[in-house]
């Protein structure tokens, strides 16, 4: 007891450190395990049908196809951590994808400036969400549902017909088609996440998601933190839109629509709690890759693409139920 520190040893009834790490990261560990499992299943199916293991081409195309979703999922994670949700992902990706297809051209310097401006546009879109949610005290789901439509409408204005073009050099820099070099950008994103986790902003994000009232009582500037969260998320969606355009080498003002739901799927599979305050962008990246691997597996299982969403949904339910059971087991095992 506290009054008498000598009466009990320092390690009094402590659980081992490893048990804490496992218990507090069960969502992330589960996501990594599911990802590993899906890679093994895919490699097995591939080997049986093709007589070899997946090579450079398969790995590269998987990574390149996953990049936009992984980036969108990181943005979604940051918003979800604050007890929010961002449905405007699809609209922002549509818009930035269209902008990229139209304006990316010319000299390297010009392309760098255009890319930065597009990221700023995404950040501005996020800032609008953040201001409405933070200052306006409106429900995130309503705000972002409305801005989703607005950004989609703007995207159609910018690029009425699919088209435009992304220079080959730009494409090969971001999504090299021969080597999975895009993983470098993911590694950078993961590093950025680790930096965020170790910053005042990161602590505040988690604090708000844990208990908004308590966070305010602890001196966290909740409104500002929310606004910043949505703004960073918007910038990340813009990067996702650029990657999507680079991968397709052209633009389409509707290809981003699906990312609203898939980013949420990736976040959930990645072990990020939709109730806020718990989760990791690394988990969300795993979740994004799991989503892509499911599509790959369904392809090799010769499932009619028409039924693809049926199986994706089924898998999501199974993963969530399974994750819940594991979480309960971990908790009751202490």
């Amino acid at each position: 007891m506290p009054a008498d520190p000598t009466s009990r040893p320092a390690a009094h009834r402590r659980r081992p450190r490893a048990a804490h790490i496992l218990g507090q990261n069960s969502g992330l560990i589960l996501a990594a395990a599911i990802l590993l499992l899906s890679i093994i299943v895919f490699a097995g199916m591939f080997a049986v049908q093709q007589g070899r293991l997946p090579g450079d081409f398969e790995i590269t195309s998987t990574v390149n196809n996953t990049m936009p979703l992984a980036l969108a999922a990181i943005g979604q994670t940051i918003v979800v951590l604050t007890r929010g949700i961002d449905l405007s992902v699809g609209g922002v990706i549509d818009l930035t994808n269209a902008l990229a297809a139209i304006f990316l051209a010319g000299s390297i310097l010009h392309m760098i400036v255009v890319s930065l401006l597009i990221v700023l546009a995404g950040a501005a879109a996020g800032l609008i969400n953040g201001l409405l949610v933070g200052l306006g005290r409106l429900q995130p789901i309503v705000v972002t549902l409305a801005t989703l439509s607005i950004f989609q409408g703007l995207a159609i204005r910018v690029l009425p017909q699919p088209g435009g073009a992304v220079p080959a050099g730009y494409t090969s820099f971001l999504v090299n088609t021969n080597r999975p070099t895009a993983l470098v950008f993911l590694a950078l994103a993961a590093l950025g996440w680790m930096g965020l986790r170790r910053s005042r902003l990161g602590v505040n994000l988690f604090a708000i998601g844990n208990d908004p009232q308590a966070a305010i009582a602890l001196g966290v500037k909740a409104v500002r933190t929310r606004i910043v969260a949505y703004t960073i998320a918007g910038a990340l969606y813009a990067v996702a839109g650029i990657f999507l355009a680079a991968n397709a080498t052209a633009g389409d003002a509707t290809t981003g629509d699906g990312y609203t739901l898939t980013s949420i799927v990736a976040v959930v599979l990645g072990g990020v709690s939709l109730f806020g305050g718990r989760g990791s962008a690394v988990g969300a990246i795993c979740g994004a890759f799991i989503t892509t691997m499911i599509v790959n597996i369904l392809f090799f299982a010769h499932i009619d693409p028409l039924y693809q969403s049926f199986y994706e949904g089924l898998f999501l339910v199974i993963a969530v139920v399974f994750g819940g059971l594991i979480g309960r087991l971990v908790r009751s095992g202490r």
Partner: protein
Amino acid sequence: MSAAAAAAAESVAAVAAREVSKAFGGVQALRSAPFAAAAGEVHALVGENGAGKSTLIKLLGGRLPPDSGAILLGGTPVRLSGTADAARHGIGTVFQELTLLPWMTVAENLLIGREPRRALGPIRRGAMAPRAEAVLAGLGITHIDPRALASEISLAERQIVEIARVIIRRPHILLLDEPTSSLVEREVAWLFARIRDLSAAGTAVVFTSHRWNEITSIADRITIFRNGAEVGTFDAIDEDEAITLMTGRRVEALYPPLPPVPADAPAVLEVANASLDGGSELGFSLAAGEILGIGGLAGQGHRELFLGLFGAPPLPRARVTVGGARTTIARPADAIHAGLGIALVPEDRKGEGLLLPLSVRDNLTLPILGRLSRLGVIRGAAERRMSREIIARLGIRTPGPAQPVGALSGGNQQKVLLGRWLLADSRILLFYDVTRGVDVATKHEIYELMMRLAGEGRAILFYSSDTEELAHLCHRVLVLRGGRIATELRPPDLAAEAIVAAAMRDADAG
């Protein structure tokens, strides 16, 4: 306090409030209240719930801005924009509602805002737990694991972490709003030792408590509040006089007399082979009309016992007999419908019973909606009549049955929960620390209610963290230690000291 005296006190005070007022909606929580606490002084704020103590603490701590009046630090008026701003002025507050972040570790909670950092700024996450461990050890706390999540540690431990988080910042002004509400004696002793250290070093300490013995043991001065107004500041005052000032009326005896248990009263609840910690087992029997107290240090399995009898979650292997019939209680619904009806009134009203956004009426009639309905449609008139009756009978202070329960004070929320079970006509009542954080006048009402309920032949199992309550309100007290019944106390041996002694004896060895 006179205007001249107030001005003089203000000028020397470390922290003072000049005629501050604060209203919430239509309710005036504070009315031009003066207050001053000097450096090195321990100043107690006392009063009923809703008297304005917590509001004053929130104003002084920068949590809320006053509607009018000013907060003064060292005689200078300041505008505090928030708790972070207050912290810059050297003010630290332990709020009544705990502010730990549940899914963050004890270390993260303890060190929030002052994490160990590298030269270029990033937080050294690996260094958090060792730093927290060292900081806690410096305060004499070694039993709390800094790597555990805040949601994994007990309520008392959370309160200790909450207090530790504030005092390690060495504030010049320390505000504590009911810091002892979930602490047991030894932890209170620990807190008071820390308070004495701080005040000896010149910190002004302001704290609120409903436990009079704590107030007299630590406070240099006592300020009494009633209905949002300051009614006096004293260097010393005796309890009866203080209660009279707090309530505006005399409360004769705090503890009403116990109705006798008839010799032939049948046992309505019998428990055998109940294991609270997976190991040792215990059993007891509770008669109609009896109030059976359960005492002991926190963490000895009281909570498990009370929740277990309510099936949330059930006690493993326990044999429970209700009204003479073997009963299996696997979930709360089983307890509510078991023979005579078992009802739990827990201390954590919002977590374990009440639906705060819903009205008093909806909360009262929840378990009897089946009885109140015809063909699945609730009979509104009957529902309204029954809820009005119970509000009158229990003296629930609410503007009306349609008021959301969340807007009521703690003691009145407690009464709503109790009223619910009276409407359901539960004959076995499990009272788990129902008076924690409840003001003295409402406590008295709850005591009288318990006596009335026992007189009606209801059986009450009663746990309280306040051993005085156990000693005065129970026919018998069972003291738990290590998941077993260590001692059974009956009058004339039944006294607070005896309960504490039985709870502590061999506590470390056992």
